[in-house]
């Protein structure tokens, strides 16, 4: 990692710790911010967060590895999570999954080489009446068909499209 990048991460973590408070209960919100901005919680970030909160980095590591939405390894700009629970399964998630793999050239659990897409399974995302359903970052798509997969991916590929940014309206409102 470049020194300037390290510095940027360090500054960001310092700012987030200040916002959420330098206490253990701030750990997960801080890690969520790191994940959203940097698409991963690297070892360096874990060490930095640990130092700020006065805990051992292993404590941070144990939390990062516990939660499905926090990742040690780099995740793509667009994390696609397809629901695999029974209602979406019965609605035809298998074909959607196959088409996602075909169009992206990766299997579930992998990230595309250009760093744009990560494909993951999700457990029930609460769209059971409108399956198959998937999440692209924070956005939800319902009644997805194998045909619609292409459109969703194209929407992502338009780099300044509506899905490219994290929804941070609530943060702006707070500041």
């Amino acid at each position, binding site marked *: 990692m470049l020194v300037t990048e390290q510095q940027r991460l360090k500054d960001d973590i310092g700012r987030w710790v200040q916002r959420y408070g330098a206490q253990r209960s701030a750990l997960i919100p801080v*890690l*969520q911010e790191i994940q959203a901005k940097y698409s991963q919680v690297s070892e360096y970030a874990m060490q930095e967060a640990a130092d700020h909160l006065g805990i051992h980095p292993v404590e941070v590591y*144990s939390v990062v590895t516990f939660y499905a939405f926090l990742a040690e390894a780099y995740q793509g700009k667009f994390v696609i999570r397809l629901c*695999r629970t*029974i209602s979406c399964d019965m609605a035809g998630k298998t074909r959607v999954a196959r088409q996602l793999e075909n169009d992206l050239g990766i299997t579930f659990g992998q990230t595309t080489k250009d760093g744009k897409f990560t494909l993951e399974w999700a457990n029930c995302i*609460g769209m059971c009446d409108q399956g198959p359903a998937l999440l692209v970052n*924070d956005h939800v798509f319902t009644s997805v068909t194998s045909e619609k997969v292409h459109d969703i991916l194209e929407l992502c590929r338009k780099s300044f499209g509506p899905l490219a940014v994290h929804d941070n309206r609530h943060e702006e409102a707070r500041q």
Partner: protein
Amino acid sequence: MNANRKGLVTFSTIDPDAALRAAVAKTRTEMIAEVTASKLKGRGGAGFPTGVKWNLAAAAKGDAKYVICNADEGEPGTFKDRVILSEVPDLVFAGMTIGGIAIGSAKGIVYLRGEYAYLRAQLEEALARRRAAGLLGPQILSKSVGFDIEIRMGSGAYVCGEETALIESLEGQRGEPRNRPPFPVDTGLGGQPTIVNNVETFACVAAIFAKGAAWFASIGTEKSTGPKLFSVSGDCANPGVYEFPMGITVAELLREVGGEDAKAVQIGGASGRCVPASEFARTISYEDISTGGSVMVFGPQRDMLAVAKNFMEFFVEESCGQCTPCREGNAKLLEGIEMLEEGRCSARYLDELLTLGEVMQNASKCGLGQSSPNAFLSIVSHFQDELMGRTHGPAR
């Protein structure tokens, strides 16, 4: 969010502000008495009497007290809380505020699951509106009581729907359930008295204060009062969220949603039970089939072993790994299901698996492991014929 709703009692006619006004006109003791009189039980699925919980938290001593709204709706097949939060968030916030005043707490937290991040902005807007209207903040409705609500996000862990795991998560820990007792009502968030209630429970509280405990208790059955929201999915004509009085039979519910030809219904999600057609006359209530509201309909063509396998894969992934019966047991049951699928499971080994399931129900530390074998056990007991001696590998 195109919910398919019929017979809505909770949603359509309740004014959340009127509920809050009616609540602050009472003393704290009277408020809790009102909840107790309504005989409201927890809508998350466990069915603990809300009035009893609040009374314990109100009586507990602590430097601070907390009100937590459990919006970590992760049970497969459940989406009613998503609909409540997107359509009537004020009902939930009013219910939380009433809870805060009743137990003497100044701080509420909504623990929203990470998968519902897209709801956050509109919830923050609703909170800001309530602050501006004096319904939240240091002086609620110009009285000397204060209460405010913060939203915290989950990070994709089903087990955090368990109340003590949820509290661990809020404290910045892995979401591993604690031993109970002590219960959160005396030793909760930060070791302080805390009430953790489901989204729908808080919405019901607002309804109770707007329309009276007697009105609420007049709906449903003697032991299961009030209306209940059901999240209906699977093989039926009109999936969606429905509101029915407690005590509705499975058959009546199926008629309403257009799923009369079902061969089985999974009630209560992955941790619930599979009800075969022969038992459709049973009622959905705390005294018969208890549920947080998940109803998954399986049509005549469905392979029940595939259903059991899907649920078991879910639990293998979502077990927090802390206690042995759950961590090892779920993996072992999944292995057994795969043997059944391949047609190489002896009747004796199946018996062993059933015994293992019972051990897990008895010996697991939290509700996840205690209920994870339910689906498998009930599918085996009702559809054994369909499961044994398969010759073609996985049926599709």
